[in-house]
């Protein structure tokens, strides 16, 4: 656009004036929608430019200020407003994406705004400045600002499509929520890409030697470590881990505490005011950033007319930061060990996040992985750079096929609350897989399909994604119906589940409308838990399977007793009843061997009963039949 806001027109051949915005179909950006800051970048012919504000800033704080006059501000201005009207400002909304009220209870008290359950279930709502907003709407406001920033930087060219990055551990609910937010902001999501994958793409690792790569992401408030496996230009997330409440902010706090202790010594013992804490934190951040380049410095804190001087050397800073950095290294170690990887096999380490600028972090990462990390690209921007490259590849065409994997296993609940995995974790997507299930009871006409996500063996330890019912199953003996449940995960990691009864073709399908369940922390924990609890889980699963089997036998025996109970003598009946009681008692306990043994003795006790029933059955079937019909009856009796 020209200075006065008018669009510039070109002279065209008759009838060839392009429709408005036609020319802009090409502008597809990469967006790193971060917890603390967001970044947008555009790639043109493989060279990426981070789209900056007029004053050159690439980072857009992911903070939204809802003004009383109805206006909405995003970014640096919104962050400034936190000081004056904290209850009108929302930050870190990413933590609430796709989260239900149960998930958020853990965060209660740490959020500066009121979180309310959604009366329709699903994602929480926020009450901010008299408005009730969902995390999706708030994220959409951030994305709108990002879109506006990009359009401004591109001289008014419209931006309508984007690749948006999400954490590798984001589940279906959070991914859907992110996509919805983009749509609300008027952006078509070309693809959701995992953040570590985007970082790896930024370094062109898709063209590098095949093998394992690690992405170490230490931001302001979160730490993530991911191990990617690159094979034929395709990335799979082999393992992820992290800490949703560990980051540069913790280091700032440690420095601020150190400063405040000094200040007490300098100006005398006094109760620390909120203003002093704020000043100390800001000074701490400045000091930390300064000491990246320098080895020592001195800063001044002045509150209520009482100045104090604070010197800090890099050595002191590193002493204060060490516990946090060591914690990240410990998590790296855990993740690498859990994944059964030898550190020496990792061919490269990518640094992401502003906190990785600290020399201590780089040194420790280099120590642990035994090689200097890749850090040429601005660690705040590297994810957006990768996303931009992918956006260009998807619109302008490219040989690069980016493949992601399912972050957690997907499965369905079977009898007794056992999870049957249909798509295992780390399966490259898009993918479709199916498994057959059957009915449990005679004449069962409906089957409830409960879709779950997670690594544990029992349903209640995993995350519930969706439930639906397949009805109209024709009455059949238990185990005769064949119900094929197919799972399809599209390129964005979103799931569709279909159930089909194979003999009738009756089908029921759901695009998973996730029932929101877990927070990021729990997601990361789930992966670790699955390994820690692998043995317990397996025992629990075996026990439950035995109990389900035992109950199935009980049902069969009881229904047989109802029909043919008259075949038994009083003694026989008594023995069977005793065996039934024994099975019931064993099922109530948790000793698998006892359950199995009781079922065996029930079988022994009912052996002669079963024979008598069979005799009666055959006699009834034969009664009044000719030999011809008998052949048919036996042949077709299966």
């Amino acid at each position, binding site marked *: 656009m020209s*200075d006065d806001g008018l669009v*510039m027109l070109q002279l065209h051949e008759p009838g060839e004036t392009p429709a408005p915005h036609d020319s802009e179909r090409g502008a597809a950006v990469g967006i790193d929608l971060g917890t603390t800051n967001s970044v947008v970048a555009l790639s043109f012919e493989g060279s990426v430019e981070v789209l900056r504000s007029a004053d050159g800033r690439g980072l857009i704080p992911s903070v939204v200020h809802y003004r009383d006059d109805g206006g909405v501000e995003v970014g640096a201005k919104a962050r400034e407003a936190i000081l004056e009207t904290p209850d009108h400002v929302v930050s870190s909304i990413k933590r609430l994406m796709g989260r239900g009220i149960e998930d958020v209870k853990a965060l209660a008290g740490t959020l500066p705004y009121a979180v309310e359950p959604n009366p329709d279930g699903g994602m929480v709502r926020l009450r901010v400045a008299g408005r009730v907003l969902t995390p999706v709407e708030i994220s959409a406001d951030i994305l709108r600002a990002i879109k506006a920033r990009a359009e401004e930087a591109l001289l008014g060219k419209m931006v309508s499509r984007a690749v948006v990055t999400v954490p590798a551990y984001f589940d279906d609910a959070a991914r859907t929520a992110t996509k919805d937010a983009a749509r609300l902001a008027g952006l078509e999501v070309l693809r959701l890409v995992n953040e570590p994958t985007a970082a790896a793409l930024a370094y062109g690792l898709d063209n590098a030697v095949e093998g394992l790569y690690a992405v170490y992401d230490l931001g302001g408030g979160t730490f993530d470590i991911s191990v990617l496996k690159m094979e034929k230009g395709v990335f799979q997330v082999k393992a992820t881990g992290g800490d949703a409440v560990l980051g540069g902010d913790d280091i700032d706090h440690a420095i601020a505490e150190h400063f405040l202790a000094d200040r007490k010594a300098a100006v005398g013992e006094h109760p620390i005011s909120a203003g002093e804490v704020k000043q100390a934190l800001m000074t701490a951040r400045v000091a930390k950033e300064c000491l990246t380049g320098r080895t020592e410095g001195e800063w001044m804190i002045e509150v209520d007319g009482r100045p104090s001087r604070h010197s800090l050397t890099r050595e002191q800073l590193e002493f204060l930061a060490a516990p946090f950095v060591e914690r990240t290294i410990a998590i790296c170690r855990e993740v690498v060990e859990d994944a059964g990887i030898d550190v020496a096999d990792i061919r490269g380490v990518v640094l992401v996040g502003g906190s990785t600028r600290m020399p201590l972090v780089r040194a420790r990462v280099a120590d642990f992985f035994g090689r200097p990390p890749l850090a040429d690209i601005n660690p705040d921007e590297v994810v957006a750079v990768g996303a931009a490259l992918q956006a260009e590849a998807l619109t302008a065409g490219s040989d690069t096929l980016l493949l992601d994997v399912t972050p957690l296993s997907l499965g369905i609940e079977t009898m007794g609350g056992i999870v049957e995995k249909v798509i295992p974790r780390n399966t490259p997507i898009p993918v479709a897989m199916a498994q057959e299930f059957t009915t449990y009871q005679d004449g069962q006409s409906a089957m409830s399909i409960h879709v779950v996500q997670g690594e544990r063996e029992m349903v209640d330890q995993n995350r519930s994604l969706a439930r639906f019912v397949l009805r109209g199953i024709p009455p059949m003996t238990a185990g005769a119906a064949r119900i094929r449940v197919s799972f399809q995960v599209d390129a964005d990691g979103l799931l569709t589940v279909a159930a089909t009864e194979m003999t009738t073709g009756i089908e029921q399908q759901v695009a998973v409308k996730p029932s929101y369940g877990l927070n990021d922390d729990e997601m990361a924990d789930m992966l670790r838990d699955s390994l820690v609890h692998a043995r317990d889980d397996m025992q629990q699963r075996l026990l439950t399977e035995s109990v389900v089997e035992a109950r199935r036998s009980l049902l069969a025996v009881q229904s047989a007793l109802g029909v043919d109970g008259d075949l038994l003598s009083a003694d026989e009946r008594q023995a069977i009843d005793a065996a039934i009681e024994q099975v019931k008692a064993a099922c109530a306990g948790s000793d698998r061997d006892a359950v199995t043994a009781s079922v065996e003795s029930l079988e022994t006790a009912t052996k002669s009963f079963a024979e008598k029933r069979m005799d009666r059955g055959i006699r009834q079937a034969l009664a009044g039949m000719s030999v011809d019909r008998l052949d048919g009856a036996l042949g077709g009796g299966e």
Partner: protein
Amino acid sequence: MDMKGPITLTDAAADRVKAMLAKRGKPSAGIRIGVRSKGCSGMQYTLEYADEKSQFDEVVEQKGVTVLIDPKAAMFVFGTEMDWVEEQMKSGFVFRNPNEKGRCGCGESFHI
């Protein structure tokens, strides 16, 4: 004589149109300005070479340039000044139209 026509061209715009007509390499009746109802805010200008004048075109001769105005457009563009703007990154014709009441965010379309 520089009579105020339905639309006026600045010197820069007139020079540019002349240059472009010369470069087009085929006989032209001039340029044609039209509007069409597309875009996110109602209408959009069209600016095209004209191979021939059509019967109902409003004809403006100005600074050596023939501007044909589509009859459908005449009432919307009356009083518009057409200018040629060159900036660091891009250049193009701009229409300063007193009839416009608003534009879409991207500036490609307008409403009256």
